């Protein structure tokens, strides 16, 4: 009977109200539209800011790229002179009619620190420039040479057999470089065989350097409500702000090509956030346990009850400001391109990071009339042990001497996978850091 009556009540309300609608007041849409306009304006502002920053980055990069090209154009005065001499030599030979035939084609070999550049005239007399490790010299090519003093003795060999180097341009500072094996070239030319110019190789030790560094970081969060129908996401976001974030570690730099550097290493990062005072509600943790739950952007923690009476589900306590602390160990892998100018060098790099969670805690005070204030430090739950990210960085180095340099390291990191699971929000932290380091050449 009672159930029947209950069903009548339910049916009465359901049948009467379900098919009906109610026109909202005009001002509701006006308020919604005004709010949407505000959001659009804010988005536009953010986009403008991003565009401006991107343009600034491109401009800075363009300037950075201009430096090495200028450097290349202006170069070392001594090598310029050498090049001029070579060209004059070539021209004089061409005027003399010695290089008109394919057999008299011209090759200019340039050895910078660890790269070989070959400029070789084709049959039409146009210069072909390319970087190479191997060149083939056909039979009958004619060469003359401006060979550095240290390998002058080999010149005779080169001239013997009717073969002449037109030019071998080497900056004076690199003259002593043993990278060009003149014996090999000489004998190869004598035998009219393939000439191999080995790229200047550093020893492993010379390729390695280490950079211990410390970086102060500014953290932001990209939040994604995977399910808009789950509550609390935006509320949590409003309450929390990051107050401190930093990282420190050591980078191992490996120069695998003249201008390319690979970096890896280990860094330790930690961040601290404040969550505004709020109510925490008791929820069922497991079958026999009910605890107050405090939510943060990253995860959540269960506050122990210090009352003799266990809380019921739905009970609430007022918490003071809560402090969440996250600790990560990070292994980066970064590819860098180096621009150099005198004592300065700029490494511009991009890479990936793998982050291991090493600790996550939550600390707050609970206000209650029945028990005194407490400051429990509890573990934070709902965080992934491992997450992945990308990294963009620029590293400006000033070389103090052959062993030491100072690094200024602006860096942008963004996680590709959320740092949390089973939360109202999926959180993708990003941070911009400015670090200071010391580079030591091994």
């Amino acid at each position, binding site marked *: 009977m009672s159930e029947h009556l209950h069903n009548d009540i339910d049916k009465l*309300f359901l049948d009467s109200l379900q098919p009906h*609608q109610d026109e909202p007041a005009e001002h509701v849409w006006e308020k919604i539209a005004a709010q949407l306009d505000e959001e659009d304006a804010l988005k536009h502002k953010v986009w403008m800011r991003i565009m401006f920053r991107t343009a600034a980055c491109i401009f800075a990069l363009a300037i950075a790229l201009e430096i090495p090209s200028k450097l290349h154009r202006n170069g070392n005065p001594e090598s310029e002179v050498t090049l001029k001499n070579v060209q004059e030599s070539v021209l004089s030979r061409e005027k003399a009619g010695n290089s008109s035939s394919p057999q008299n084609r011209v090759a200019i070999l340039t050895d910078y620190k660890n790269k070989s550049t070959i400029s070789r005239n084709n049959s039409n007399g146009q210069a072909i420039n390319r970087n190479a490790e191997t060149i083939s010299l056909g039979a009958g090519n004619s060469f003359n040479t401006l060979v550095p003093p240290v390998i002058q003795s080999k010149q005779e060999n080169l001239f013997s057999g009717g073969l002449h180097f037109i030019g071998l341009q080497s900056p004076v500072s690199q003259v002593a470089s043993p990278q060009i094996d003149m014996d090999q070239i000489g004998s190869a030319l004598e035998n009219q065989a393939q000439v191999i110019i080995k790229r200047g190789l550093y020893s492993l030790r010379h390729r390695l350097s280490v950079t211990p560094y410390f970086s102060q970081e500014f953290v932001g969060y990209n939040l994604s409500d995977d399910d*808009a129908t789950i509550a609390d996401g935006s509320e949590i976001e409003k309450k929390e702000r990051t107050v401190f974030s930093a990282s420190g570690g050591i980078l191992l730099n490996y120069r695998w090509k003249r201008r390319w550097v690979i970096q890896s290493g280990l860094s330790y990062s930690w961040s601290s956030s404040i969550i505004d005072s709020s109510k925490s*509600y008791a929820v069922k943790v497991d079958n026999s346990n009910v605890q107050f739950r405090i939510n943060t952007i990253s995860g959540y923690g269960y506050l122990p009850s210090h009352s003799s009476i266990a809380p019921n589900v739905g009970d609430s306590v007022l918490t003071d400001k809560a402090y969440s602390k996250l600790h990560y160990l990070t292994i980066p892998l970064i590819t860098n391109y180096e621009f150099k100018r005198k004592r300065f060098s700029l490494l511009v790099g991009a890479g990936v990071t793998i982050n291991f969670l090493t600790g996550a805690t939550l600390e707050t005070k609970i206000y209650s009339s029945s028990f005194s204030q407490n400051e429990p430090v509890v573990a934070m739950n709902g965080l992934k042990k491992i997450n992945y990210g990308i990294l963009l960085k620029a590293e400006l180095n000033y070389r103090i001497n052959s062993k030491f340099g100072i690094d200024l390291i602006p860096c942008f990191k963004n996680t590709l996978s959320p740092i949390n699971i089973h939360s109202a929000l999926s959180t993708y932290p990003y941070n911009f850091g400015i670090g200071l380091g010391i580079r030591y050449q091994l």
Partner: protein
Amino acid sequence: MVIKSQHIPDIELQKLIKGCVARDRSCQKQVYDLFGPGMMILCLRFSRNREEAEEVLQDGFLQMYKYISQYKYKGTFEGWLRKIMINCALQRYRSKVHHFNSISLSEEHDLLTTHGDFIERISEKELIRLIQTLPTGYRLVFNLYVFEGLKHSEIASFLNIKEGTSKSNLSDARAILKKSLTRDLRMAK
């Protein structure tokens, strides 16, 4: 009032949704015009008064426009929007302190079953008003159970309460509504 949203073709609705994703204001307005009245009655049921219902409606539509790109056309758009509205109503409830205690109700002689004509004549506005007079906890449980068709276990996890509390709240809500209807019936007589 005729439910307008049921008459819009899916293709038209998809166009409107795409327009909303692109933040086209005219599409947003059309979606609001289509679904606003249906959602308003839901908000009225979940709220204490019309002002609060309008605030919930406003929050709900703003949330919907924000997250509309996440709508994957699984299930009806209206159902998805309903969930957002309910969520907004619950969020409002969560931000305030509420208790799910039982209150004692005096036994009333049941006149309702014998006065079907009165029941039929009672307006939906009056029924809404009756629901709005329920204590917040009861109102939420009653709405979720009767109108949204949730089970007690689902309501319990949704509201972070015990299943028994949900059952007891529903029973009390029904009793209060019955009592109010009986009083109205007596006054009408």
